[in-house]
């Protein structure tokens, strides 16, 4: 049999529960804009009924605490997508800086400065002009000045590439300390979570861990592995352990062959990190693949032009009637020994325009057959089986296509991140309209409970006053 007393007790519990629920709503509204906050909802639980004389009576409600609305699968997918987007994003930034060195020439005379394609043409054209009048000093001077422009622009481009590379190297090295502070923060949170809520969602702690994970995955490619007691292990994409439970392993860096390499323990993990994802992966891809690729193409171009032109000039007769000798070769460009470094070291060593060998070997100084041969080099396959201009044209097309495909990739990945973010926000974000409606509901429920309590109080007074209506009011 139910009693008025037990009804009063049910109502006071209901008031408590509603207060707790309102507290949760207040916390949600307060954290509406907190990054990483996951919306919480009150958990209602029916109290155990009691059975008296075979009849079961409900015993009201208890609010057992807040539950975070979280989807771990969605969150880890978001992290994964973020690390890919961050990788292509940082690679794209580097590539954009890179391609700015090779801006297309619009064809107007003001834009030809600094354009290697025009420089190549200009240089070989200077020999075509020399054909018309092989002894003319102005035309000879023009050969040296166009050679200087070509060598200057190629070596400047190479120098810029090298300095971009070392800037990227520094940026990549700077990521290390951020990664380390995040992994140790996650390790600490892991420990707290394992102690405080080994079996359930850890609420705020979990939010913090998730927020750190999200930051970490933008820096470096990671895999997440859930372990017992709500713990978490993190490895790099290729499987090296970054943290396990409460222990984090520090990523260290050191200089190897002039560039920064990354170590976990004693293992060099640089090559795995290159394709691993995260902005570090993007920096390393640009540093170890894109820039060296562009440099290598320039080196090949510089090497082939320098050696072929030098050899051709050396085989002719200059204005003084001399042919090149081993001790005094008629070299226009600094003769490179190796392909690597040719672009950076390209320069004009000839200072006297009369040493340009326009005449063929054994011919008089008014002959132009060697100038014709040098001009013809422009249309010969002297660079990796291609003419210099074709080679450069292919180089810019390849570079442009790479940048363009990374751009497309990055756009797609960002769109996917946005989509996942929207899904995640829809689930875990604080919707103020929802909170307003929840608050109204709980407020009404609280009001109802207090009304019922008042009524019960009146009923109790009536019960106490049976026979004497004025004893209790």
């Amino acid at each position, binding site marked *: 049999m139910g009693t008025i007393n037990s009804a009063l007790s049910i109502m006071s519990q209901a008031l408590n529960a509603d207060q707790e629920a309102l507290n949760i709503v207040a916390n949600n509204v307060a954290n509406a804009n907190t990054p990483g906050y996951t919306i919480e909802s009150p958990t209602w639980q029916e109290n155990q009924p009691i059975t008296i004389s075979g009849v079961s009576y409900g015993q009201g409600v208890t609010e057992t605490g807040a539950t975070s609305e979280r989807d771990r699968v969605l969150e880890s997918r978001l992290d994964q997508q973020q690390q890919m987007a961050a990788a292509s994003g940082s690679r794209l930034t580097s590539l954009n800086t890179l391609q700015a060195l090779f801006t297309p020439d619009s064809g107007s005379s003001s834009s030809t400065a600094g354009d290697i394609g025009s420089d190549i043409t200009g240089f070989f054209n200077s020999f075509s*002009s020399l054909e018309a009048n092989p002894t*003319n000093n102005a035309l000879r001077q023009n050969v040296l000045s166009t050679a200087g422009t070509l060598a200057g622009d190629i070596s400047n481009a190479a120098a810029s590439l090298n300095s971009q590379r070392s800037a990227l190297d520094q940026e990549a090295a700077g990521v290390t300390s951020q990664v380390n502070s995040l992994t140790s923060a996650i390790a600490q949170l892991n420990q707290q979570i394992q102690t405080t809520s080994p079996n359930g969602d850890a609420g705020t702690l979990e939010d913090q861990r998730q927020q750190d994970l999200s930051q970490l995955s933008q820096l470096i490619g990671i895999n997440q592995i859930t372990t017992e007691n709500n713990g978490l292990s993190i490895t790099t994409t290729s499987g090296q352990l970054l943290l396990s439970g409460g222990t984090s392993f520090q990523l260290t860096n050191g200089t190897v062959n002039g560039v920064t390499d990354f170590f976990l323990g004693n293992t060099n993990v640089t090559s795995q990190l290159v394709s691993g994802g995260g902005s570090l992966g993007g920096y390393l891809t640009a540093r170890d693949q894109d820039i060296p690729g562009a440099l290598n193409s320039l080196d090949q171009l510089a090497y082939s032009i320098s050696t072929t032109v030098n050899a051709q000039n050396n085989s002719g007769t200059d204005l003084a009637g001399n042919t090149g000798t081993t001790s005094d070769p008629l070299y226009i460009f600094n003769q490179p020994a190796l392909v690597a470094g040719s672009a950076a070291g390209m320069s004009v060593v000839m200072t006297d325009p009369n040493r340009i060998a326009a005449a063929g070997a054994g011919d008089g100084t008014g002959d132009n057959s060697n100038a014709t041969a040098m001009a013809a080099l422009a249309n010969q396959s002297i660079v990796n089986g291609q003419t210099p201009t074709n080679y450069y044209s292919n180089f810019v097309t390849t570079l442009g*296509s790479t940048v363009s495909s990374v751009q497309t990739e990055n756009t797609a990945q960002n769109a996917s991140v946005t989509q996942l973010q929207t899904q995640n926000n829809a689930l875990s974000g604080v919707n103020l309209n929802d909170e307003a409606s929840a608050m109204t509901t709980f407020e009404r429920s609280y009001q109802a409970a207090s009304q019922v309590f008042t009524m019960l109080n009146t009923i109790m007074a009536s019960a106490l006053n049976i026979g004497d209506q004025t004893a209790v009011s």
Partner: protein
Amino acid sequence: MRVDPFYISNLVGSLDQTQATEQQLSSELSSGVRVTSLSQDPVASGENVLLLNQIQQDDTFTQSANLVTGQLQVADSALGSVVSQLTQAISLATSANNGTMNSSNVKSISSQISGILDEVTSLANTSYQGQYIFAGGQTSTAPFSTSTATSPAVTTYHGDSSVNYLQTPNGQKIQLNVPGSQIFTGSGTSSVFGALNALVADYSSGTVDTNQAVSDTTALSTALNYVSQQRVAIDNSMTQVTAASDAVSSVQTQLTTAQTNLMQADIPAISTQLSLAKTQQTALISVIAQLNSSSSDLFNKL
């Protein structure tokens, strides 16, 4: 259904993107260039390098053509003068050979022909911009000199037989010079200087060995014909240079048009895109303003 409560930040993202598009489009409009970075159109960027290469080659050839035309004209006019001088020498010799002249007249003819010889030598030593044009490759020294130690005098060629060519962008080779040996001291009887020196010697004593003189005069006529033939080679080169230069100029015009079409901004299309982007931006701004206005929140209704 639950929705993303932060949809406004997505809208702001779209707004940023629209602004970036507007920036890009207006930079294309102001520069007039469609492709401002390689990644915008990699294929066009590569094609552009090739087109500019051809255009510049053509441009250089047109300039070279102007340079060599001057030299070819000098050579042509020098050979023209040689022809008229030789014609005069032949008519002098013919008049001396008819046997009606007295000794002093014959001597005077000898000295006139000697004057013609000097004139022809100086024409054969014609220089253009300090370079002797009939010297083959040895353009720094005068190609012809006459030694009077013997009689008849001997004119020697100091040049060589090298011929310079100008190559057109499509590989055609145009001859730029004819070595002096080929024109003036050609093999056997066709030697201009041989015949002139012989005639000077024939008439120098005042008495004429008619057989010898007639044979030397015939040799000079043969040499004259030969010079005229060589002059044709120079004239041919001039025609070729002009024709090649015209052809190259017209190719260059076409290439420039192609390059312009490839790289230049399509102003009407870009203006349309810009106006679309502008409209989108305005729409986004009003949507954001609407959504952000205070009445959109349920809390305001409580």
